[in-house]
């Protein structure tokens, strides 16, 4: 297993909000200017800390949406209605505000050219965020390793980065609607869709799988049952069981 050394102490840093971009009704991308930000690897995440007037603090982790090559650091955040931090980041935060950040964090769910491929990215819902960072990095580094994204969302309106993803080898599927004029797939990312749209197991794709727990468990089980090696599947899960 590859060993990425990350021994530097991670300190809290200030970042200034440059822009807040609406991606979907529930999802926004917070674009940040972070002066001393160390270059992250594609797929890593960051801790965000908020401080209330009485000194109370809350921390959460968010995937980095931007590629290491991008000018600004970007986080795409989905608003959880009962959340403590995500409603603030998506509804209250404005350009010019400051955030405290710590990171980049996580050395396993990352992709770089030397890890090879073919690269299969499978995302559910906002699980597409770190995969988008990997795709942007793949493009920016002019990698010739084949890369493909399978992305499922509930409805067309829930698709994050919809326009941008048209630029990549992407299979989109909608699980809760079949809108008129929709040219992508419908239904879950299951065994059938994987055997058709993913690289076959004998090509030993390197697979990055990110989404809600149930999604990741289902897709990972399907991939293993199709013959993909568990050690070639890197997963990141979020949300309750």
């Amino acid at each position, binding site marked *: 297993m590859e060993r990425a050394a990350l021994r530097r102490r*991670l300190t809290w840093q*200030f970042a200034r909000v440059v822009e807040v971009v609406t991606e979907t009704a529930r999802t926004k991308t917070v674009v940040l200017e972070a002066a001393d930000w160390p270059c992250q690897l594609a797929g890593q995440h960051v801790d965000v800390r908020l401080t209330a007037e009485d000194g109370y603090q809350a*921390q*959460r982790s968010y995937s980095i949406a931007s590629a290491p090559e991008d000018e600004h650091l970007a986080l795409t955040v989905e608003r959880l209605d009962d959340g403590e931090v995500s409603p603030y980041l998506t509804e*209250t935060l404005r350009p010019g505000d400051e955030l405290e950040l710590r990171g980049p964090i996580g050395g396993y769910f990352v992709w770089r050219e030397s890890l090879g491929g073919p690269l299969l990215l499978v995302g559910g819902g906002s699980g597409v965020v770190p995969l988008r960072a990997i795709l942007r990095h793949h493009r920016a580094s002019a990698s010739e390793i084949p890369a493909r994204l399978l992305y499922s969302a509930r409805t067309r309106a829930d698709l994050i980065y919809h326009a941008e993803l048209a630029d990549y080898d992407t299979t989109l599927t909608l699980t809760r609607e079949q809108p008129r004029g929709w040219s992508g797939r419908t239904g879950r990312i299951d065994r059938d869709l994987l055997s058709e749209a993913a690289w076959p197991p004998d090509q030993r794709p390197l697979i990055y799988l990110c989404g809600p*727990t149930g999604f990741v468990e289902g897709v990972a089980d399907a991939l293993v049952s199709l013959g993909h090696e568990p050690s070639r599947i*890197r997963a990141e899960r979020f949300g309750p069981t």
Partner: protein
Amino acid sequence: MSPVSRGFRGRRREHVEAGRVPPGNYLTPDFPVLSAGPTPHDAIERWSFEIRGEVDEPRSWTWEQFTALPSESVTVDIHCVTKWSKLDTSWTGVSLDTLLGDIDTSAEYVLAFSDGGYTTNLPLEDIRDGKAWVAYEYDGKPLEPEHGGPARLLVPHLYFWKSAKWVRGIELRVDDQPGFWETYGYHNYGDPWKEQRYAGD
């Protein structure tokens, strides 16, 4: 000194003030799942728990032997490095004291190992004296695979990545060998009350 986040108020502080949630963590009623790869589903007939490494005679138990060992039921608070804490979780399993018994070893560290290749390292003293279990029931029911079943390590006084899912044994070691997340930038020891999340904390 952290700047005030304009318009941020925050909530859910009652347990934080009661001292049951470590700094930087928040309470969740859910039980989030975090694992680096697919959930293993191996046949229970092939399961064993081993103690190996710095020991004269390695020990090994089959599932049947293991679940026949004296068990303990404990209710503990658990704290994940990804910020969630969950209070009063109930587990049943075998205490590491029972498993280690009167083993004579010069080891000061252990490396727990799991199905799927996961490892995590701990000082031996952190799994002795009623501080650690190999748990196979959660909330009165067999432990679900996604939560580490058939059996996981339970070391509630450290961040929960130390409580290795799908654990298959421990290696007793003279030297401290960093495990999986410890190699990828997470803290070597992981005390939630000192907020030892990442290397250097």
